[in-house]
């Protein structure tokens, strides 16, 4: 069964080719069927592979040689194991729901752009599948670059709006900065070990010096920072909201941002061998979690709130990776994929109903117009806030417990972030669905529940968000109920051997769960109460809230620290070096030749006699030079 794994990325690739090439001649419904069908087919194959792996274990499927030079070999091989099969399910499953949703959401587009949209979407899924399936870092890098490219294409999907193009460019550049780190890490590995295949690298990890391991893992983490939007490279993700909403769902939930988590979870042995990097990962993750959460508190764009919430949740995942809770991080990727996809699709449904209004201050009271969207959105909010027994509770709790075991400071800061999560999610929920409608009369008349192609994915995702956590019930609540941990155990087995184990008292865990849950419920009640009677005129002008509203002025900081000096430098090169230096040189050569030829032209007198005279003189000169040892003189002196 595992042999058929090549079908998983093949279907989206075919979908991409068909939709991409036939977008001008195909109807919308045909495009939708091809685009969604390709992902559905992948999902079916992924399911089969998942159960095959569950029963028969992991395998590596080599397809052909990608690079084969003497002893240096990089096969184009697929890694079919517990981790990748789980990610396959997340990517294709949620990807399919998003495709299905898109067929309704994007229905206003011209067929040609509709086809382009689905082609990009399929290519995106294809790249992500390649990233997850690759059995070495080089194949992973192909997918890694592929998702970067597709995010660029999709964020700038409405390319007639220049702001969107800038957002797309920003995403691409930020990603490229991270990619450089990843690439350097791969080169370093190839240089030291001569191989990039996971199996060989992980088996030979003990041959690397501790400096090498630290450097490689740090560089890989730089790659993850770019792709998974961590400080300092996170600013592209909120701007990525420029793309169509389902694309945001795809980027934030199923693909792209989870790539960094996947990569580190995949390289867990390397990271376990490099405690310094682990600390870095944990600290950066935690800082991002808190920092993004504070920004999300004051955002008014429905998608921006969700975007910063994603950045924050990704921070938790990195915290989990940093403290060695690899299973917890992967678990959170999965549950986060469920509820974040749901949140984005729900937001899309709201935006769709509100005729592209995204400002939550102008919404409110949508509960009675859009019952399905409202219920599913509420479930997602409860899940992300971490209310038991919704999925987010279990995964976040697992990460935070592991963080507590490592260092209690991580835990308390992390819980602070979780409380902020509850606050901003319920602020969003309350402003959108509760209270009175604050939009225009015209919008109010047209609000409607979305079509079933949009609500069905919402319902499925809501169900998953509610029960998804049950595959990872912590030991303390029910013994041996953490089926995900058992499933993933072979992947993290080597790390588990090396890592030190902390065990918390059951009572301590109960206390932590209970107190954090209680605090979150209190926050939720407070928030709902606080914003239920919100009026659009309400203004809070404290300087701190202004700071948060403007995202700590980080974009402005980057602009003045990096972008503007670079622009200045580029301007200097363009105006001074290019114009006077290079252009001057090139034009100077041209002018010199022109001047020289104008002077030489005077020799062309047109008088045949002159030409002959010059010829004769030239011959004489030639003879003199040729016989410059004066032999000709001796010859003449002899004969005369």
């Amino acid at each position, binding site marked *: 069964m595992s042999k058929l794994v090549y079908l998983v990325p093949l279907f989206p690739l075919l979908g991409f080719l068909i939709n991409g090439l036939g977008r001008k001649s195909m109807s919308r419904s045909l495009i939708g069927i091809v685009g969604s069908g390709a992902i559905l087919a992948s999902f079916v194959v992924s399911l089969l592979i998942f159960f095959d792996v569950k029963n028969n274990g992991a395998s590596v499927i080599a397809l052909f040689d990608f690079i084969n030079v003497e002893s240096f070999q990089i096969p184009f091989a697929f890694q079919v194991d517990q981790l990748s099969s789980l990610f396959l399910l997340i990517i294709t499953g949620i990807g399919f729901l998003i495709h299905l949703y898109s067929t309704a959401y994007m229905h206003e587009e011209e067929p040609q752009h509709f086809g382009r949209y689905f082609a990009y979407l399929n290519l995106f899924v294809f790249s992500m599948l390649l990233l997850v399936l690759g059995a070495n870092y080089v194949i992973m890098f192909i997918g890694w670059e592929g998702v970067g490219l597709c995010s660029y294409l999709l964020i700038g999907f409405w390319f007639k709006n220049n702001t969107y193009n800038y957002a797309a460019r920003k995403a691409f550049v930020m990603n490229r900065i991270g990619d450089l780190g990843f690439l350097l890490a791969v080169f370093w590995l190839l240089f030291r070990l001569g191989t990039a295949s996971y199996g060989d690298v992980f088996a030979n990890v003990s041959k690397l010096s501790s400096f090498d391991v630290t450097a490689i893992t740090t560089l890989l983490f730089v790659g993850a920072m770019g792709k998974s939007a961590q400080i300092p490279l996170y600013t592209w993700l909120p701007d990525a909201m420029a793309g169509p909403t389902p694309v945001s769902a795809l980027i934030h939930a199923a693909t792209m941002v989870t790539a960094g988590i996947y990569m580190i979870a995949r390289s867990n042995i390397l990271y376990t061998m490099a405690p310094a990097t682990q600390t870095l990962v944990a600290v950066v993750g935690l800082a991002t979690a808190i920092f993004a959460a504070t920004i999300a508190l004051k955002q008014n764009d429905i998608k921006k709130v969700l975007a910063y919430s994603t950045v924050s949740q990704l921070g938790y995942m990195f915290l989990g990776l940093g403290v060695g809770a690899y299973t917890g991080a992967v678990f959170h990727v999965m549950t986060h994929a469920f509820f974040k996809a749901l949140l984005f699709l729900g937001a899309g449904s709201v935006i769709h109903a509100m005729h592209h209004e995204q400002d939550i201050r102008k919404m409110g009271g949508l509960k009675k117009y859009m019952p399905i969207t409202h219920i599913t959105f509420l479930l997602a909010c409860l899940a992300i806030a971490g209310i038991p027994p919704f999925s987010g509770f279990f995964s976040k709790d697992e990460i935070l417990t592991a963080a507590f075991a490592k260092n209690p400071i991580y835990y308390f800061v992390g819980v602070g972030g979780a409380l902020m999560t509850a606050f901003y999610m319920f602020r969003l929920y309350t402003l959108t669905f509760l209270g009175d409608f604050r939009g225009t009369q015209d919008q109010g008349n047209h609000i409607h529940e979305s079509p079933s192609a949009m609500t069905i994915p919402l319902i499925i995702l809501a169900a998953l968000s509610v029960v998804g956590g049950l595959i990872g019930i912590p030991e303390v609540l029910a013994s041996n109920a953490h089926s995900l941990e058992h499933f993933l155990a072979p992947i993290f087995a080597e790390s588990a051997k090396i890592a030190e184990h902390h065990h918390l008292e059951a009572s301590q865990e109960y206390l932590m769960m209970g107190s954090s849950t209680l605090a979150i419920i209190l926050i939720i009640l407070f928030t709902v109460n606080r914003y239920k009677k919100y009026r659009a005129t309400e203004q809070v002008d404290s300087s701190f809230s202004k700071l948060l509203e403007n995202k700590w002025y980080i974009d402005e900081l980057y602009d003045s620290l990096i972008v503007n000096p670079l622009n200045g430098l580029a301007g200097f090169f363009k105006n001074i070096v290019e114009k006077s230096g290079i252009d001057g040189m090139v034009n100077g050569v041209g002018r010199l030749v022109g001047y020289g030829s104008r002077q030489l032209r005077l020799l062309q007198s*047109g008088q045949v006699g002159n030409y002959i005279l010059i010829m004769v003189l030239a011959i004489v000169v030639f003879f003199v030079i040729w016989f410059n040892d004066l032999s000709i003189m001796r010859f003449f002196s002899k004969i005369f």
Partner: protein
Amino acid sequence: MPIQYYIYLCLALFSIGIIGVLTRRNAIIVFMCVELMLNAVNLLLVAFSKMHYGLAIGANPETTVGIDGQLFVFFIMVVAAAEVSVGLAIIVMMYRNTHSVDINFLNRLKN
């Protein structure tokens, strides 16, 4: 006769040819001067050929030393004949177009 005499004669002929080419304007005379130069060289070749042959025959009655010089002479004569036919044709065409054989009329390529 010493070889020097031939060399003097050839030098004289060649110089006359060069000076004629450089100074005369009549295309036909220029042309004749070119022929003169060619024939000066021919004469020199024949003279040297004979000289080398004369020096070598004493040692070896079968020798062919110097024969190549005479071969060159024939080549030059053939080439000169071809050149004359082309050159005279050009001069005829020139006369038809300009009603003159003055080479200074041929200055259209000036500058």
